[in-house]
């Protein structure tokens, strides 16, 4: 008789999920999937709320990318009201996003991912890393903390921030704050450089065999780009890229012409896909299935916006091609972006115009629809609101970062499960390899 294995909760990820693997009589995988176990219902309970309060409500969708939800909500409300924001506010928002991403990426790489690569026997976690290499673990804990506290310092809160408001920012940055933040950002940049070198020497080369094999699937990709087709995370167009390199580009507010969301009976997640490219089916090589988040962003972009990150991108493409389909290299792409975030934060903070006092535009409430799109450390995020003439939300659709990869994660884990479970033979270490594939997407 066949057998069902249930892994619940999946661990070292940020959402409540389970993975189910079905085995046949011979102990080989017949099916495997990951279900999202929780739904809170923001798309319903935000209806009726005043539009200007939305950024302070929807930031609670995700503790890890609360800053990005906060930004997307503000952008959606601003589009509906027809507001354009002052330059200094744009700089403050971008700075906040880069700093928030830095601490997220440190969390993802050092706390959630690295134990899989550096620790050979379970338990594999940050506590084990502390025992195995306390200097490294303590450095990561300190640097993550520094990134978080820099945001708190000028924005009040780093988890569920409140400082971004429709029209701009709630307060200007002072010159003293700018100088202090710059020092911190420079320290983080040194750490990002060190991390990149460390990972290229001590981590990825030792795993080249499994990188080229485990959980590798062929998919399309989605990511934000600027007008020149370069890597962008706060404001730009969305670019879809097929596995063969074919490109479609569109403004985020047109997303419904390109993207549809499917539902499966076994998950609260929705399954966004590129409806332009055919009929969706949760099957290998279906061109409508795309991947999102860091690997997707560095695949779809022409260039990185900063010098060191661009040099890393060139080296990456030299080694792995474009688009790169190796799932485990999400971890590598993440560090190229970490470098870009740190370089960008330093660059923004060197610009004294960030302390300009004009940080909020005047605007009036009006009826309309707005779409706010930003990238997040989990994937492309879209907030779509309809607002009535009194400024209350009447309709809302949100496509969340982790859902953007729901289809791809399911295909990669199935592929990985087939590779590591053979003839009924498996152990905790082998099974953990399947979770390594899921963690690469950072759900």
């Amino acid at each position, binding site marked *: 008789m066949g057998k069902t294995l249930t892994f619940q909760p999946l661990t070292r990820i940020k959402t409540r999920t389970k993975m189910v693997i079905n085995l046949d009589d011979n102990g080989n995988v017949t099916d495997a999937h990951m279900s999202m176990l929780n739904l809170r219902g923001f798309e319903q*309970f935000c209806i009726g709320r005043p539009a200007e309060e939305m950024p302070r409500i929807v930031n609670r969708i995700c503790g890890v990318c609360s800053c990005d939800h906060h930004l997307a909500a503000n952008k959606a409300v601003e589009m509906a009201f027809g507001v354009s924001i002052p330059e200094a506010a744009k700089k403050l928002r971008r700075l906040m996003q880069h700093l928030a991403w830095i601490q997220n990426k440190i969390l993802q790489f050092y706390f959630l991912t690295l134990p899989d690569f550096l620790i050979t026997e379970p338990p594999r976690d940050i506590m084990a890393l502390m025992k195995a290499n306390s200097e490294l673990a303590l450095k990561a804990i300190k640097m993550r903390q520094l990134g978080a506290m820099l945001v708190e310092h000028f924005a009040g809160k780093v988890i569920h921030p409140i400082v971004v408001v429709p029209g701009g920012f709630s307060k200007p940055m002072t010159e003293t704050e700018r100088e202090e933040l710059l020092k911190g950002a420079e320290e983080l940049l040194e750490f990002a450089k060190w991390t990149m070198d460390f990972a290229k020497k001590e981590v990825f080369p030792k795993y080249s065999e499994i990188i080229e094999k485990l959980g590798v699937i062929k998919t399309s990709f989605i990511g934000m780009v600027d007008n020149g087709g370069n890597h962008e995370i706060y404001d730009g167009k969305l670019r879809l890229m097929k596995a063969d390199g074919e490109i479609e580009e569109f403004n985020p507010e047109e997303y419904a012409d390109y993207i549809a969301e499917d539902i499966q009976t076994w998950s609260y997640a929705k399954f966004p896909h590129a409806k332009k490219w055919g009929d969706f089916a949760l099957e290998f090589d279906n061109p409508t299935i795309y991947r999102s988040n860091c690997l997707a962003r560095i695949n779809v972009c022409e260039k990185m916006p900063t010098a060191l990150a661009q040099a890393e991108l060139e080296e990456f493409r030299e080694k792995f091609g474009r688009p790169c389909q190796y799932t485990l290299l999400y971890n590598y792409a993440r560090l190229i972006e970490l470098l870009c975030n740190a370089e960008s934060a330093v660059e923004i903070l060197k610009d004294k115009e960030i302390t300009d006092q004009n940080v909020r535009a005047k605007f009036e409430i009006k009826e309309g629809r707005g779409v706010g799109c930003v990238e997040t450390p989990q994937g492309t995020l879209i907030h779509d609101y309809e607002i009535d003439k009194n400024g209350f939300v009447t309709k809302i659709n949100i496509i969340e970062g982790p859902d953007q990869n729901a289809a791809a994660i399911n295909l990669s884990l199935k592929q990985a499960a087939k590779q590591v479970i053979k003839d009924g033979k498996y152990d905790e270490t082998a099974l953990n390899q399947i979770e390594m594939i899921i963690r690469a997407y950072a759900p």
Partner: protein
Amino acid sequence: MGLKVVEEFLNACSGCELSILNMGETWVDVLKELEFVHMPLLIDNKYFGQTGEGTQIEIPEADIAIVSGSVRNEEQKQVLEEIRKKCKILIALGTCATNGGIPALANMWSKEEILNSIYTNPPKDVPAWLDRVYALDEIVKVDVYVPGCPPHAKNIADAITALIKGETWSLPERSVCDSCPLKREKKASSGTVKRSLENLEFDPEKPLDEMRCIMEQGFLCLGPVTKAGCRGDSDAPRCIRARIGCRGCFGPIRKGAKPMVEMMTAWSSIGLNAQAVPDRRALLNRFIGAHNNLRPLPKR
């Protein structure tokens, strides 16, 4: 080895867990006294065993359990009950756990209305929703409350340190206003409460105690009916430091408080007309919709 700890997130966002990490080096010190035996965000313990062959949800025994999130579905309820069975002291971490939090805004609708509006065909093979969102103490006994959305890292550290010493811990029954440095003149500068569509009046170069109270400037701030504690060791409540009004994320000042009534009194005491406050019911219950504070209104 020190005290065994189980940490779990239920109907939550993982923000509370990040707040634990925001203790930074204090967290490293705390780890010397504690042994985490279950914490999905950071460590690999699974309910059905490490190779997925178990048949029922099992969570290790612990001295302290820290649980974030409210309870939305059958699975979360089952996990919470198992944790309660296996632990000596249960900490409700964050306002979702203590009062329902933002996800309890869902209690203004029936579960069917929500599921049918989100999915054309709601998924079936997933944990079934309970009738509404519950705070932890509506399901099991809670020993320590650490509210906040998210809680302040200092409060988490203080609570855990107290428990390590065998003491108990709670936030004092004070309001955000009691911990706020803004300047008060006891009367509002305008007659009606304004929506937050423009920035407050202040000089960014000057300290907070030279800025006028937000309510007195005529803008929304729920400081009078919200529990203090979000400022940690800093000079002011977190939103005030961002020059923004409070929205009540630490929940009510004391058990049995009536924020709706008390806030109306606070507005009228400084001569503000609260009739124009938009979406009052959801605003004043934004973080506290469990405990039957929010429920579906009868259809007109």
